[in-house]
């Protein structure tokens, strides 16, 4: 039953990866900005929730605070970092380095303020009970699945039913439209950052309730989001989400065969293989050259 246990665990992790990755993919697709500080939104949202919780505030306030912080951070990055760089024809690498710098700064600030090492919130939601012989599940498993399903439903409704959503999707599928859109691309890019960053918050909060957060977790989250986006195929939110789920499951199921230290390497092996053999990903529409 170890396998089933690992599979379920993987699905839980994967659901959270999927959410974060979809946020990253949304931003990358719509703006072509490799938002390397996406993991930082995740960290900030998680710690914001942690602070509220430890301050005795109810969970929903913490959740709102987490979402707000993630969104604000995403918007601030767009306005204060990416926009000025793109104004002077900065290459993608300029963007990458700048974002990376911010990620380093925030990681260390969080470490100084909140202390280093793992921190988590204790709730009864993460107490596991035996649901099958030797298979343990906590309520949080169901919450994670439900949150992921609801958010993806909401996101796809937003992307197909609303005017702004359709525009974002069009941008993701056809980067050339970015230029044709002209005036409104400014606002669309802010929208992409707001929505994409907000997607990281629920995952961060659920992570705080389960495995816990540390100040460096943003790195890991970022790398997984990036891997999922590329494996899924740039321009495809569905691809990124599926790939995120798959990476979570792969990492977890791999534990049946290899030691924990290798779990993360499995994701990167998958990423590396995709880049060499199928750079356009599962559902890739975008070309890489």
């Amino acid at each position, binding site marked *: 039953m170890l396998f089933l246990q690992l599979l379920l665990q993987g699905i839980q992790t994967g659901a959270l990866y999927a959410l974060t990755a979809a946020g990253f993919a949304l931003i990358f697709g719509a703006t072509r900005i490799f938002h390397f500080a996406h993991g930082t939104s995740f960290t900030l949202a998680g710690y914001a929730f942690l602070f509220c919780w430890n301050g005795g505030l109810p969970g929903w306030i913490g959740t709102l605070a987490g979402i707000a912080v993630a969104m604000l951070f995403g918007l601030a990055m767009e306005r204060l970092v990416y926009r000025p760089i793109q104004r002077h024809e900065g*290459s993608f690498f300029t963007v*990458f380095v700048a974002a990376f*710098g911010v990620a*380093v700064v925030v990681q*260390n*600030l969080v470490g100084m303020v909140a202390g280093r090492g793992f921190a988590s919130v204790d709730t009864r939601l993460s107490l596991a009970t035996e649901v099958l012989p030797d298979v343990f599940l906590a309520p949080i498993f169901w919450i994670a699945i439900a949150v992921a399903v609801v958010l993806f439903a909401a996101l796809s409704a937003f992307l197909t039913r609303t005017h702004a959503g359709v525009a974002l999707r069009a941008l993701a599928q056809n980067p050339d439209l970015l230029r044709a859109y002209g005036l409104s691309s400014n606002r669309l890019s802010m929208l992409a950052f707001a929505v994409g960053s907000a997607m990281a918050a629920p995952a961060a909060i659920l992570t705080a309730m389960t495995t816990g957060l540390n100040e460096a977790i943003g790195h890991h989250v970022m790398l997984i989001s990036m891997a999922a986006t590329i494996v899924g195929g740039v321009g495809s939110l569905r691809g990124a989400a599926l790939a995120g789920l798959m990476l979570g499951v792969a990492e977890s199921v791999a534990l049946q065969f290899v030691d924990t230290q290798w779990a993360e*390497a499995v*994701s990167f092996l998958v990423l590396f293989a995709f880049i060499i053999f199928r*750079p356009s990903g599962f559902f890739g529409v975008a070309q*890489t050259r």
Partner: protein
Amino acid sequence: MIAYAANLATIVAIFGILAATLNFVVGFAGIFSVAHAVFFGLGAYAGAQVALHIVPDALLACVVAAVVAGGLSLCLALPALRVRGEYFVAASLGLQMMATTLFSEAKAFTGGIGGLVAIPRPTLFGMEVSVLPLALVALALILFATALLQRGAFGRTLQALRDAESAAEALGKNVAAAKTLAMLFACAGAGIAGALFALHLSFVNVESFTMDQSVLVMAMVIIGGTGTLWGPVIGAIILLSLPAGLAFVPFIPATEVGAVQQIIYGLAMTLLMIFRPAGLVGDLSKGRATA
């Protein structure tokens, strides 16, 4: 005090080599590798193994390190031939993460998390030497190579394929060969830096070969100025003397020095990218640097 200065100088020279070799691929070929520490590590382990099990000859250690790191540079050349831009950065990050795990697990070669200890003092032609002069010579050679690259045909080839790969090919340039060659050269150089590093510290472990280290080296190149001759070295000097400088600032508690240092270099990277993307040196020799 002299020992301290000599130690700092050796480390600066070693990281100068690392940054200058990374500059070949980043500054000239426009291949943005975030896996340079992997080849630094490969060289360090290879050099350490030579010193531990064969002879602590510095030259032999460097040659073996260069061969190992250069040979494995194919791991990075392969994705470089397939993809560009963000995709390549992602591939190199993937490689870096896998290598970090491998370094901690391949105990026979790397000694695992504990690393390789008690590496004997290096010798050269049978005489014991300190690493500083060796590192300075290597750095000088690398800088000389950079100067040639800036003026010569190969550097032009790399820059041409950076700016317009298809046009370079249409002019008869074998782009794949040029990229592979540049990568091989840069990685072999990183391997040499690694061997010198291992011989200097007489102890190495995976901590020095993580993604953080790759990013630090990258930051040196960027802060100094990509594609410039002295930029990477100046970047290395600045970033390596930061901790030393911060140690003298009274109001920072000792436990936070590392974090403050990281914050400073993170801020420096971001602000430079926003206001001066060509780097510190890049501005002086306008038209050279292209971040």
